[in-house]
């Protein structure tokens, strides 16, 4: 603990006293670099709790600006932030909470041209993106660069979370080889969402990220956690890597990034 200040030891003391964390674990958390894709409904609680836990660097990728209708679930932004880039208000809030965290904002969408360069600097990617092209793009990029994704998604009253660790468990494509036909899956804008639902899934993503950083517990590799907010029920489904997966399978056919807009046949939906 020699290289933590006295204040830092007090700040993280409730973690440090956990046998699963200790001084060694807190050091691992501080040395970790986590990339958040999206500072929205999932990214907000994930960002808050990763920052509170003392993660060393938090990258935040988001191209959007704060809108009044976001505030029903996106707790990193305040009323006065309406119209500001989400990466800016997210950075302000995180630094107010914990100035020890280095926040790196990327006010851009994730594209085939910039994804490899952005993910390169991070140990882990927490995915809170809201559209299919970005999900496939991020998945393929992370398989190619051997980066683990902590994935989360929500729909009305149902949420799910899992961890895609390349070549150890399945990837997103093993689960969903093809995107749904355009227009088949309604967005939050069309179907609505209970604000607390992305809160729960985003917090669980933060938990998974910390478990991976600390190498403790049973992370959701090869397991899909399903949460039904209406029934208040959690279920776990076993999921397997597909040996024929075009990107992480035994004989991959996708060895470089493709055009994901075209692959998904749609413009990105907003959530």
């Amino acid at each position, binding site marked *: 603990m020699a290289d933590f200040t006295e*204040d830092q030891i*007090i*700040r*993280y*003391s*409730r*973690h440090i*006293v*956990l046998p*699963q*964390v200790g001084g060694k674990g807190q050091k691992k958390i501080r040395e970790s670099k986590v990339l958040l894709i999206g500072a929205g409904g999932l990214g907000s*609680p994930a960002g*808050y*709790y990763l920052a*509170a*836990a*003392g993660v060393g660097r938090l990258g935040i990728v988001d191209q959007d600006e704060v809108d*009044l*209708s976001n*505030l*029903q*679930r*996106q*707790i990193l932004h*305040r*009323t*006065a932030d309406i119209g500001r880039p989400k990466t800016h208000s997210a950075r302000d809030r995180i630094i107010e*909470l*914990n*100035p020890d965290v280095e926040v790196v904002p990327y006010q851009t969408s994730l594209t085939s041209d910039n994804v490899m360069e952005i993910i390169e600097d991070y140990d882990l990617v927490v995915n809170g993106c809201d559209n299919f092209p970005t999900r496939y793009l991020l998945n393929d990029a992370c398989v190619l660069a051997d980066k683990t994704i902590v994935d989360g998604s929500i729909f*009305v*009253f149902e949420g799910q979370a899992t961890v895609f660790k390349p070549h150890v468990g399945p990837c997103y494509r093993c689960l969903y080889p093809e995107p749904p036909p355009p227009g088949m899956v309604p967005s*939050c*804008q*069309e*179907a*609505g*969402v*209970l*604000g*607390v639902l992305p*809160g*729960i899934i985003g*917090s*669980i993503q*933060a*938990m998974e990220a*910390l*478990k991976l950083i600390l190498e*403790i*517990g*049973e992370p959701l590799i090869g*397991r899909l*956690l399903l949460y039904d*907010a*209406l*029934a*208040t029920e*959690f279920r*776990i489904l076993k999921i397997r890597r597909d040996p024929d997966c075009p990107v992480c399978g035994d004989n991959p056919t996708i060895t470089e990034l493709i055009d994901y807009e075209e692959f998904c046949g749609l413009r990105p939906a907003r959530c």
Partner: protein
Amino acid sequence: MLTDRDRERYSRQILMDRLGEEGQERLKSSTVGVFGCGGLGTITSLYFAAAGVGRLVLVDSQKPDLSNLNRQVLHWEKDVTEGVSKAESAKYKLSNFNRDIVVEAHTAMVTEDNIEEFFGETDMVVDCLDNFESRLLLNRFCIETGRPMVYAAVHGFYGQLTSIIPGKTPCLRCIFPESPPPEPFFPIIGVTPGVLGLLEATETIKNIVGLPGTLRGELLIVDLLSYEMGKVKTGFDNQCSVCGKWRK
């Protein structure tokens, strides 16, 4: 009545068939008590503010210290330095987050004699406490005044949760006839109260809006290390010193 601004701000939840304008109006016209502004209370109140609960009553006697900041996301380093109380610190952040709701803060020790003063006008109270003595005080008050409450507790990577509806479900004393020993410096990872606080907020919103599937007579057990989650049925204690006579 909802304003045009409400309709836009809460549009994503008004769109939901099971909530709609009626559900949003119920949230707007409700007053929720948040007893404790620590790990559970900061996140529940943040999501109540986000969801548009019309009036929040925050009660806590303490000031934040540095060791709280790994989980109590509404308190910042400057609040520790300036010595602002937890209730006031939370009120300030919540009011900035959503200017369209009313937030009341009370920095006070709650006792049997004054609890009515704080929670007497609430529709529901959320137990965001860290000690059993205060929980029992709240439990008794809620049973005696016929007020629903939501209970949650956390430790390390584990947590539990239930709804207590006076006359309909067992009360906290029925579920826990013996008080656990106090643990002033309990170990906790920040996300645990995060998840449990969010589950409490969900449970409260479902109770207010009238959605199905609330944890009535069931205790949800959460293990965030393995995700072995389970529900345990809770039973009435006919000899219960708190709710026994009210049920007769």
